[in-house]
Every structure is written in C-alpha cells, then in structure tokens.
C-alpha cells in the first residue's frame, strides 16, 4: 500500500509541475520589462495602453450582454423542460453537444456566410457576435441550471406554490429563481471568463475585442504579453475559483464543471 501512495504522490507532483511551471515562468518573464531588474513596468505599460482599456471594455460589454441574453433565453427553457416537457430532456442534452461538433472556428465561418447577405445582414452588428457567444456558452449555462434544478424538488415546490394560489410569475421569481441562485451565479462567472478572453469568434467576425488585442500584442512585444497572460489567468482563476466556492455544498451532486474554450 505504501508503495502505491508514493507513486500517487509522484504523478501528482509531475502534474503540479506541469501546471505551475508555465505560470511561474510567465510571471517571472512579465517582471523583466526593465533590463537588469525585476519590475512591474510591463504591467504599467499594459494599463497605460488605451487599446487595453478599450478592448477589455468592449469584451466586458459583450460578456455582460451574453450573460443577460443567454440567461433570459436558457433559464426559462430549462425550467420549462423540467416542469412541462421532461420528454424533451434527452433532446436538449443532445443539443448541448452540438457546439462541440461545430467548434468556434466553424461557427464563425457559418455565421459570416449566413448573415453577410440578404435576407438578414447582421455581420456589422455586435449582436451577431453576442449570438455566437450565446451558442458557445449555452452548454455551460444549461448544464449549470440543469444541475441546479435537479438539486431542488421543482415539481413539489411548484405544486405547493400553485396550490397556495401563486401565479406563474410569483412562482418563477419567488420560488424557483432564489433556489437557483448558486447555479445562476456559476453560469454567469463561467460565461464571463469564457467570453472576455475569447479569440476565434471576435477575430473572424473582426471585432476589436480583448482576445485579438492580446494576440496582436504577442506578435509585437515580449514582456507585455506575459503580463496580459498573468492578468487573464487571474481573471479566469478568480471567476472559477468563485464558482467552486459558491457551489461547494452542491458538488456532491456530480461534476458540473467541464469547460474548455480555445
């Protein structure tokens, strides 16, 4: 048994090195902006660059729009599926796999083809970008809300509320949504983390977003990109760490995180 534990530690250590070494290297690299000394000058440059604030602001705006519109579209749908058409569940779950089959690069290509000519011309509207982001974020939002709904007795709650005379609106806002708070928060942070640094859709649809800005910096500068990587890692880590903190109690219900976007 002892030997087995030792081996387990070894693999764990290798994993940790693989995870942290690049982060450490990036951090050290980001401090080398001034020759000969370690300094935060690269970070200063980043924050002083008006493009940084502009592109980050743009991406933040897109992310917030994606969260709001995505939740408005997906949350009622998920509740409806649970309450009224449980038969549709496998079908919706199948749909959550579609964004995997159609990765962002293909989605962007298709969106350009479809919406750059009549009847609907949308390529010059940021709403098309937001629509694309909603498609990308939909599996994460749906799964998180779905897990939240599974964890509560939706049917019992809704029957209790209705037999006490509450309307659908009251049921939704006073009973269901408060119980979904954690799920909604985790969907929100995950979506923010995914959208703010997203490269592919923004690049292909030609928007001045944070992802393309970072890629451009990478072409031209050395230390500032490292600073950007650290900032963006802090953002992802912050968002997802927060989710884990919020959902700690509910985690036994099953793994609900599983998210990658490249």
């Amino acid at each position, binding site marked *: 048994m002892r030997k087995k534990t030792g081996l387990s530690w070894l693999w764990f250590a290798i994993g940790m090195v693989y995870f942290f070494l690049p982060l450490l290297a*990036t951090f050290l690299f980001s401090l080398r902006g001034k020759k000969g000394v370690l300094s935060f000058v690269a970070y200063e440059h980043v924050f002083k660059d008006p493009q940084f604030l502009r592109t980050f602001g743009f991406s933040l705006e897109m992310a917030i729009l994606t969260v709001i519109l995505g939740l408005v579209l997906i949350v009622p749908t998920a509740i409806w599926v649970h309450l009224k058409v449980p038969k549709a569940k496998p079908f919706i779950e199948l749909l959550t*796999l579609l964004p*995997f089959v159609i990765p962002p690069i293909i989605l962007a290509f298709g969106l350009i083809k479809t919406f750059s000519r009549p009847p609907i011309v949308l390529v010059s509207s940021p709403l098309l970008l937001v629509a694309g982001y*909603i498609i990308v974020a939909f599996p994460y939002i749906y799964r998180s809300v779905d897990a939240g709904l599974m964890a509560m007795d939706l049917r019992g709650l809704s029957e209790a509320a209705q037999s006490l005379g509450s309307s659908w609106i009251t049921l939704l806002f006073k009973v269901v949504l408060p119980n979904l708070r954690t799920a909604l928060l985790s969907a929100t942070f995950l979506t923010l983390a995914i959208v703010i640094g997203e490269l*592919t859709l923004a*690049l292909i649809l030609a928007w001045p977003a944070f992802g393309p800005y970072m890629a451009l910096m990478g072409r031209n500068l050395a230390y500032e990109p490292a600073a950007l990587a650290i900032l963006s890692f802090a953002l992802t880590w912050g968002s997802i760490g927060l989710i884990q903190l919020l959902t700690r109690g509910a985690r036994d219900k099953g793994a609900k995180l599983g998210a990658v976007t490249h």
Partner: protein
Amino acid sequence: MTAPVERDGAAPECESVPGPRANIPHRYRKKASFAWLGLLPFLLFVFIFMVIPAAGIVTGSFQDANGAFTLANVRNLFRANIISSYLITMKVSATTAALGGVLGFLIAYGISIGGLPRPLRAFMSTFSGVASNFAGVPLAFAFIATLGRVGLVTVLLRTLLGIELYDTGFNLYSFWGLSLTYTYFQIPLMILIILPALDGMKKEWREASENLGASTFQYWSKVGIPVLLPSLLAAFVLLFGNAFGAYATAYSLTGGLINLVPILIGAQIRGNVLHDANLGYALALGMVVVMTMTIAIYSWLQKLSSRWVK
C-alpha cells in the same frame, strides 16, 4: 470546448405513471403537445444561429463559385497538402489525447483511490476546472515564457545542465511544442472526465477479488480494465476532438506555421491563402464530419460505461 459530464439519461421525473394511456382524457394529451411550444424561442435561436450556419457550410461545400452543384470541392480535399493538414491535426490530437489522457488518469487515480489525502482532491478538481479553461492566447504566451528561446526552462537547461534545447531539434513552434502546449489543457480535462468513472470503482470489488485470491494483475485484467475501458476510450475520444477543434491556441502560438485544419480554415476565411471560399466550406465540412464521429463514439461509449458508473 466541452466536457459533457453526463448523468445517466433517465431522470426520475421522466418516468410515466404505469397504466393504460388510453384512459387519459383526450384534452390532457393535447395539452402535453402544446407544452412543446414553450421551447420554441430557444429552439428557434439555436436553429437560426447554429443549424442554419452549419447547413450553409454543408451546402457551400457542394457548390462552385456561381452556386451550381459540384463535387470538385470535396474532391479537392484529397489534394496532398490538405490530406497532410488533416493528418498532422490528427497526429497532434492523438498525441495530446494520449499524453494528457495518461497523465490525467494517473493523477485522477492517485486522488481518487490511490491514497492521497482527501483535501487534495477538492483542490485538484477546482484546479482542473480552471486549468482546462486556461487555453487560447494566454496559454500560448505562458509556453513561450517557458519553452521559448529565452523561456525559463530553456535557460535553466542551458545554465544548469549545459543542454541547448533548441539544438536537440526541439522547437516550440513545431509539432512537439504545440503538443506540449495542448497537453496543458488536456490533462485537467482528463481529470474532470475520468474522476466520476474512478469514483464508480467500488472498493468492494477489489476486496472481493483479493478474498478470492486474485493478484493485482488479475484484478486489473479481469475487473478494473473491463469496467474502466469504455470510460477511458470515451475520454480519449473527447480529448481528441477537443484538440482537433482548437484554433486560438495554435493561432497565437504558431501564427499558422503548422498547417492544422482549423488554421487553414481561419486563413481561408480571412482571405490569406486559398482564395477559394467553397474549398474552405469543404474543409470545414471535413472537420464537422470528424467532430460528429467523435461525439457519436463518445456518446456510445458513455452509454456502455454508465452501466457501472452511477
């Protein structure tokens, strides 16, 4: 992309009450079909912004520049440079799925049944959630700072061991560099996918087989591997697809030095290389076919493994 961590398909509320359906009054049955209308806004959205664009790619692959039907684009997919592009993408995907899969499995095994302390497990699943999302541009920068020409590891190897990494044929911007970079998000994804399967391995099975006199080898060959195999294969397939569709990391790391399929498609859309939109659609179609096969195999394997993993 996504690690669809699936639950066993049948939700308890799905089960209909046993009894003759014919007894249900007609108007109630009618009501049930109207309930589907509640899904309409969402389905319409998915249809407009995902199904139609995807269908546009499919139809575009079978059209020439004037919109007439042709098979030329699909035939052009078999040109040597495009075949080699598919092959290198598959090679990167398979290599990183194998590397990430093995390491991810060993780590997950350690924290699940290998005897590492419990708190480490919570930490690891949190960390995997973050690290599997840490991809794209920042990941490329991180690896440039690590294994680039003046990266931390490159310099350390030179000063401490006297090894010139770049003289050994290694280059961050080529196959192995890209594969090591992808592996960074493949390992944590593997941990996230395989942990539930490992949790399904019951201690009692091990104890029972040991009581019956089975050796460690016998336990693994007769019990462990057969139970885990569908999950392992499913995870591998998902990691493969995950790498196959990745664009942002490759774009910001190599800037198109390696002709991966997503890079080729991106270059095509942005009008840099091929200047043949319809060939671009065919390239995209090929990719959708690969991804569809991936997810189909994955779903099938998941169903097999759900017998054990609850």
